[in-house]
């Protein structure tokens, strides 16, 4: 619980982030990628980077979007343009830690681990890392990502990173 906030508010924030991330990874793991952009606000930011880049204060990402439109373009390209073998993910999330909140935006971190399952049956641990989230709660209590930074623990990606994390 954060100092200065009530227990109920703290729990509410924790649950909001946890529920948003649970629905977010479910959409990805169930191949409902068309729903993926809607977890973000219109000008939401999405970045996949590595702990190595973050440690050196370098801004580069592997995927980088600054709007829901860019996320939709990513999905469209995956569906219609890019070539990759059939595969799926299984995300396992750690409990979110709420770092703070400011003006209706909650900052939180959650650890994750993703297994990748290929159509061949090959199953590997594909990625581990941390979601660094800024979550916007609107007046109606609905939660969306204003920003989601995916910090990968490893700098290496096996073969390719097609489906978002």
């Amino acid at each position, binding site marked *: 619980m954060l100092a200065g906030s009530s227990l109920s508010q703290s729990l509410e924030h924790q649950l909001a982030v946890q529920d948003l991330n649970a629905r977010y990874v479910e959409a990805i793991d169930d191949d409902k990628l068309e729903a993926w952009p809607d977890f973000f606000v219109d000008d939401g930011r999405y970045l996949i980077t590595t702990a190595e880049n973050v440690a*050196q204060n370098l801004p580069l*990402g*592997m995927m980088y979007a600054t*709007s829901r439109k860019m996320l939709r373009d990513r999905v469209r390209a995956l569906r219609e343009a*890019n070539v990759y073998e059939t595969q799926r993910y299984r995300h396992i999330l750690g409990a979110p830690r709420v770092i703070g909140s400011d003006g209706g935006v909650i900052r939180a971190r959650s650890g994750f681990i993703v297994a990748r399952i290929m159509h061949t049956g090959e199953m590997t641990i594909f990625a581990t890392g941390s979601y660094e989230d800024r979550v916007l709660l609107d007046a109606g209590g609905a939660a969306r990502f204003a920003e989601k930074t995916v910090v990968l623990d490893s*700098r*290496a*990606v096996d073969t390719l990173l097609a489906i978002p994390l």
Partner: protein
Amino acid sequence: MNIHTALRQWPAEGLTRVPYWVYSDRDLYEDEMARVFRGNTWHFLCLEAELPKPNTFRTSHVGDMPVVVTRDANGNIHAFENRCAHRGSLLCLKERGEAREIVCCYHNWTYNLEGTLTGIAFRRGIAGKGGMQPDAKPESHAPRKLKVEVFAGLVFGTLGKETPPFESYLGVEVAQRIRRVMRAPVRVLGGYSQMLPSNWKLYMENVKDSYHASLLHMFFTTFRLNRLSQKGGLVVSETGANHISYSMSADIAGKEYEQAGMRSAHDEYRLEAPELLQSVDEFGDGIGLQILTVFPGFVLQQVRNSLAVRRIVPMGLEKTELVWTLFGFETDDEAMTELRLRQANLVGPAGFISMEDGAATGFVQRGVRGAPDEQSVVEMGGSGTSSEESRVSEAAVRGFWKSYRQQMGF
């Protein structure tokens, strides 16, 4: 060369055939490390900008051999094997850092930043007991030093005694095209690695294959970033070792792909956020795409304003690490940096136009598993390795094999 490899015969057709055993022969791999990588060839080690000040180091590789690259107190750059003279342990365990000397963690043997052994713990023993004999010469086992050349902000090294000077190894045009991109002091934007499920040669062939780019990578073709019908060209250095493929970014309304019914042509496909492809002609020559390689394992990329160096690290017969470093220039303002970061979506393991390469090389590796004595057919653009206007050509791939066969003695 081991006996097994020495008995191998290249197909009589020459450069238009590649026998599939080159991707699956274990003995060949060891010979390649010795002859191609530790031989008379130049290897990209890092960007000069990755050694930002005196007394810094960066680890790298020559083939699968680990290497330390340093900038000494006087600002001079050195490279040496990352192996202690004593027991062979890695000397540097970190990717990068600051150091005035390099100390092996195992027994505290110490090296200066030129890679010269300067100290041995308890060499004279303790209280007259133990230690080395006075006539011992541990220095004679010191890690090998590389000859280093810094060219346009790129650090290259070689172990070969007869490697030609770097610029003549490149050839005039390739040298010019490197200078074209590396036009100012570099600012590193970041990096990552892509683990390719294939032999290292399949990746280098892929990069040199100007024929595949717009056919495999539909994103490329759809947005007219690169079509074979766009103006451009293919330059192969005289040795075959190095190449440049380029195309002009001017939009043309050609319909060749649509008429031919290519899967990669999709005219109705439009981006909702076209700012992804917003770019500036920063080199002032209208060239929107330039892919350049230096044999055996270096790639310099300009895809619009996305600039990167890539180097390969073979990790055994069927695994290759591809190390990407993306950069801009110190003179870039915030808007230009943002443009480069956005265009970074095009490249890397998640790149709209490059993610397929990681998979395609693996498809070949898996596809040829039962066919070591079969051969691939490399006949687009004829049988030669000369430069040409058309990129519907495999001349640069043949150039790679010309150079490879020369190094290997095939």
